[in-house]
Every structure is written in structure tokens, then in C-alpha cells.
């Protein structure tokens, strides 16, 4: 048991070392969401009438946070696909280490990268007027929620990465699925404008429940959600926790099985 913890920590440490050896990766991973903050804040912010105190940016920031951590699955998928392609996974599999070490190490490593990304985005948000009003404990909980969501999404990335075995395919696949998921939600605009059926989808969408949960934790009224009055939109924190639990409970065991059997 202790041995498997130390195994996955070595894999996680490898990722942190990568961040030091090629800082460009982290820089770009941070610039992109920061750019989104600025674009949405100044391009759409003027056009969208938020009707909340402090303006659109209060609603926007939780949306962008969630979108960013949802994309953790891209980092995981692409990273693992690259390791597959280069034969590194083969080498790991020939070592006397626990069968879950590589995938746990990877998901934890990607989550640690999110810590840095979220700090930078939070600061950029603050600079353009984001003012969470719920007090330090709830704000901290909000960020913890975001990290946990990113971590659970990361397990889907493991399966994608080990299945497609090619970096670029992984990238395309992830963008094709995660982008619609983040836009068919309450993250950037009210869901009222959508056809009724999409409203239901949007409200059951884990991205929406996460965004709603974060808005609550950061102390902003969620005026973009709850138009179809569905259960998840009324209990976003609980629903998000359920989603996270399900993601890990379903995808983590499948991932480990996949890793054990994967073959180039």
C-alpha cells in the first residue's frame, strides 16, 4: 500500500518536473483561460445584461473556471496518448509498480497543474472586477470544488488517452466533446434562449451544476440557470458531488483495467 503511494508520487513528480523543464506548456495553459476571461469580459460582457450586482464578470468567472477544469481531461488524454505513442507506457508496464500508479499519478499531476492555472485566473479575474462575496471559507471551498471536478473529469481523459493512442486524435476528440458540453450550459449565457429540450440538457449538464454550485459558493446569484426548474438546477452542489462521485466510481476502475491490458 505504502509502496503504491510512493509509486504514483514518482509519476506525479515527473509531471511537475516537466512543468519546470518546459514551462511553455504551463504558460500557454494559463494564457488561454486568461484570454478567455478578457474576451468574454469585454466582448460579451457589454452585450449581456446580467442583472446581478457587480456585473457580468461575477457570473462569468465561475463559468470560465469550470470550463478550464473540465479541459483537464484534455491534458490527461493528450499526455497519456503521447506516452503511449512513445512507448513510455510500455516501459512503465514492464516495471514492478502497482497497476494503478501511472494513471493515478497522471490524474493527480494534472490536478496540481490546475492549482497554478486557477490561481492565475483568479488573479486576472480580480483585476477585471471579479469580487467573490461569500467569505474566505466558501471561496476556498469553491476552489476545492473546482479541483475535485477537474480531477474526476481527468479520469475520462485517461480512457481517451489510452484508447486513441495518438496525441492529435486525442486532442480532436476532446475538443469535439468538451466544447459543446461547456457551451450547452449556463456558463456564459442564460439558458432561457435555448429550445426547451436543450434547456433540460443544459440543466442536467454537469458543467451547469458545477457552474451553479460555484456561483453559490462564490456568492453570486445564478440568474443564468434554473429556467426549466429541474432538480439539478435547484440542488447544484449536491448534484455536482453526485456527478463527481459517479465519474470517479465508474471511470477510475475502467481506466485501471484499460491500463493493465493496453497494448501498443
Amino acid at each position, binding site marked *: 500500500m505504502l*509502496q503504491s503511494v510512493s509509486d504514483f508520487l514518482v509519476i506525479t513528480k515527473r509531471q511537475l518536473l516537466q512543468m519546470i523543464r518546459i514551462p511553455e506548456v504551463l504558460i500557454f495553459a494559463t494564457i488561454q483561460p486568461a484570454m478567455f476571461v478578457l474576451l468574454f469580459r469585454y466582448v460579451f460582457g457589454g452585450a449581456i445584461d446580467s442583472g446581478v450586482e457587480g456585473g457580468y464578470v461575477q457570473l462569468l468567472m465561475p463559468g470560465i473556471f469550470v470550463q478550464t477544469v473540465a479541459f483537464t481531461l484534455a491534458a490527461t488524454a493528450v499526455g497519456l496518448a503521447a506516452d503511449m505513442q512513445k*512507448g*513510455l507506457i510500455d*516501459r512503465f508496464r*514492464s516495471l*514492478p509498480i502497482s497497476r494503478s500508479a501511472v494513471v493515478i499519478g497522471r490524474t493527480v499531476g494534472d490536478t496540481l497543474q490546475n492549482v497554478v492555472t486557477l490561481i492565475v485566473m483568479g488573479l486576472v479575474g480580480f483585476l477585471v472586477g471579479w469580487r467573490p462575496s461569500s467569505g474566505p471559507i466558501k471561496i476556498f471551498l469553491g476552489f476545492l470544488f473546482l479541483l475535485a471536478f477537474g480531477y474526476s473529469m481527468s479520469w475520462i481523459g485517461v480512457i481517451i488517452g489510452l484508447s486513441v493512442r495518438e496525441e492529435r486524435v486525442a486532442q480532436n476528440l476532446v475538443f469535439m466533446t468538451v466544447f459543446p458540453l461547456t457551451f450547452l450550459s449556463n456558463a456564459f449565457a442564460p439558458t432561457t434562449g435555448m429550445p426547451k429540450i436543450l434547456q433540460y440538457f443544459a440543466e442536467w449538464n454537469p458543467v451547469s451544476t458545477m457552474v451553479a454550485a460555484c456561483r453559490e459558493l462564490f456568492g453570486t446569484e445564478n440568474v443564468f440557470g434554473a429556467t426549466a426548474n429541474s432538480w439539478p438546477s435547484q440542488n447544484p452542489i449536491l448534484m455536482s458531488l453526485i456527478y463527481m462521485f459517479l465519474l470517479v466510481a465508474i471511470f477510475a476502475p475502467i481506466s485501471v483495467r484499460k491500463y493493465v491490458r493496453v497494448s501498443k
Partner: protein
Amino acid sequence: MKSIVAQELVKSYGKGGVKALDGLSLDVEEGTVLGLLGPNGSGKTTTVRVLATLLTPDSGSATVAGIDVLKHPDEVRKVIGLSGQYAALDETLTGWDNLTMFGRLYHLNSSGAKKRAEELLEQFSLTDAARRPIRTYSGGMRRRLDLAASLIVKPKVLFLDEPTTGLDPRGRMEMWGVIDELVKGGVTLLLTTQYLEEADQLADSIAVIDSGKVIARGSADELKNQVGGERLEITVEANQIADATRLVEQVTGVKPSVDHGIRKISAPVSNGSASLIQVLRLLDEAKIHPLDIGLKRPSLDDVFISLTGHVAEVVVGLEVGGKNAAKRK
């Protein structure tokens, strides 16, 4: 004692059921080197992947260092080293980072992993490059580091899957030197290669593999004898072919085969060097000066063709290079 035993391994891929392994059996005596020789797609890599616990065969059994590969893969992983045909390293990290990481994954403690990394970098002449990212390494340096990573715990059994594929001649020579040293250290080695020359150079024993089966087994000499003994080969000017052919026949007692295109006369000989001297003397008396003359033992190329009925495609060009190199000497 046998260090590696594989029995009747079968592995099919995909829906069509293409058989990568079709009842492959082999064994390797402890402390010796087996060269697994075959063209691309013959099943070499699949064999290594099964023995190194990366792939489960459809049927068959295997033991490595006396441990059942299918029943106790974790135990097998503790005693093997694997270095693949693609250098499996983290390209973004330095050589040092890679070796210490793998050391930790072999469960050395932190200072143990560092000490071993230092030793290996020294042993493989990579100390100067230790702090550089792998992506700046040459092909040969990568392979050496990859090999170093597979030696961290001094494995009992080492698998090298095409260790020199894609290396330039110098990188190949360096790699051969390194492998030679390892073998002197007593490790049991299974080496796959598509270079006949490489198997000849490094392996105690060679298993020729084609379509997922071992089709011949023996030392390089044994395999060559299986195809036939020495041949005398002479190349002369076109207008001297007839005369030279007559002289060769006179000495060998056999009707030589003549290739007019490349003006080469060749005939099997039993008492190689004596026949060579005799032919040379007769040619000299007849004022015929051969452009090239020599005794040729069948190459492993010839072995391969006679065993499989087809040329080991990938190998031909390289083997020609090898022959030319030998001629220059």
C-alpha cells in the same frame, strides 16, 4: 539452467485473426545470448512483449528466470530489463531525471536511485549529457540511456528489441560494444534483430523466426552449414570468362555456375584455401588477372532465403553494405 522458456505461444490480432505468433517455442540457457532473427512482422516484438509481461498470449506458456510469466507477472517484472525499439524515455526530462525516476520506480530509495543513476551515466559515457533534456540527444545516446534505464536493478534477464534499428553505423558499433560488455557481465539476453550481421556478431545462438514460428535454430556456423559449405567466387573481364570457368572446373571437379551479367564464376569447394591457391596459380599462368577472387561462406542472408523461400526484405540493402565494408578491409 534455462533462463527463458516459451512453449507453443499463440497470439492473434484483430478480427481477421492475423496470427502474430503461431506456436512459437524457444529457450535460452542462463548467461547466454539468443538472437531472434526475422523480418518485420515476423513476430519478434510480439514474442518480447509476451515474455516481458506486456501482452497476454491466446495460448501457450512461458517462464522467465524460472517464474511463470502468466501466473506471476509482478515477480517477473522484478528480474527483467526491457529496452524497446522506440526509445521509451521522457523526452522533456533530462537523462538524470529519467534514470532517477526509473530508479525510484524500481523501489530504490532516493539516494540509492541517485547513486545508481550516476554509475549508469558513467558506464554509458553520458555523464556530460546528464543534465540535458533527452530531446537534444543523438539517436545513439538515446538508445544508450534507454538501455541504462533497463539495467537499473541489474536484471537477470534482459530483452532488447531491435537495439540498433535506425542507428547510423557508428551508433550501431557503439551499441554493440555496450551490449558485448553486458554479456560479459553474465546477463541472459534475448535480442531481436533484423540484421543478420548483428545476430552473427552478438548472439551465441540464433533462432530464425518467420510468420510467428521458429523455423531454424543453431549457432551462426550451424545455420550456415545447413545451407551448404564454402564457395569459390571469381570475377574476371568478360572475354576471359570462358577460360577462367574451364580452369575452375579443372580444380574443383564441378561445373561452376556463371553469372555473365556481373562476370562472376562460382563453384562449391570442399578444401577451401587449397583450391583457392591452385586456381590462382592456374589463372596466373594463363595470364588471367581476376578483378576479385575469394572464398565465400554462405551469409545469413543465404540462410534466410533457403529457409523461408523469400528474402528478408529489409535486410538486403544493409547486408550489401556489410559485404562492401568487408571487401574494403
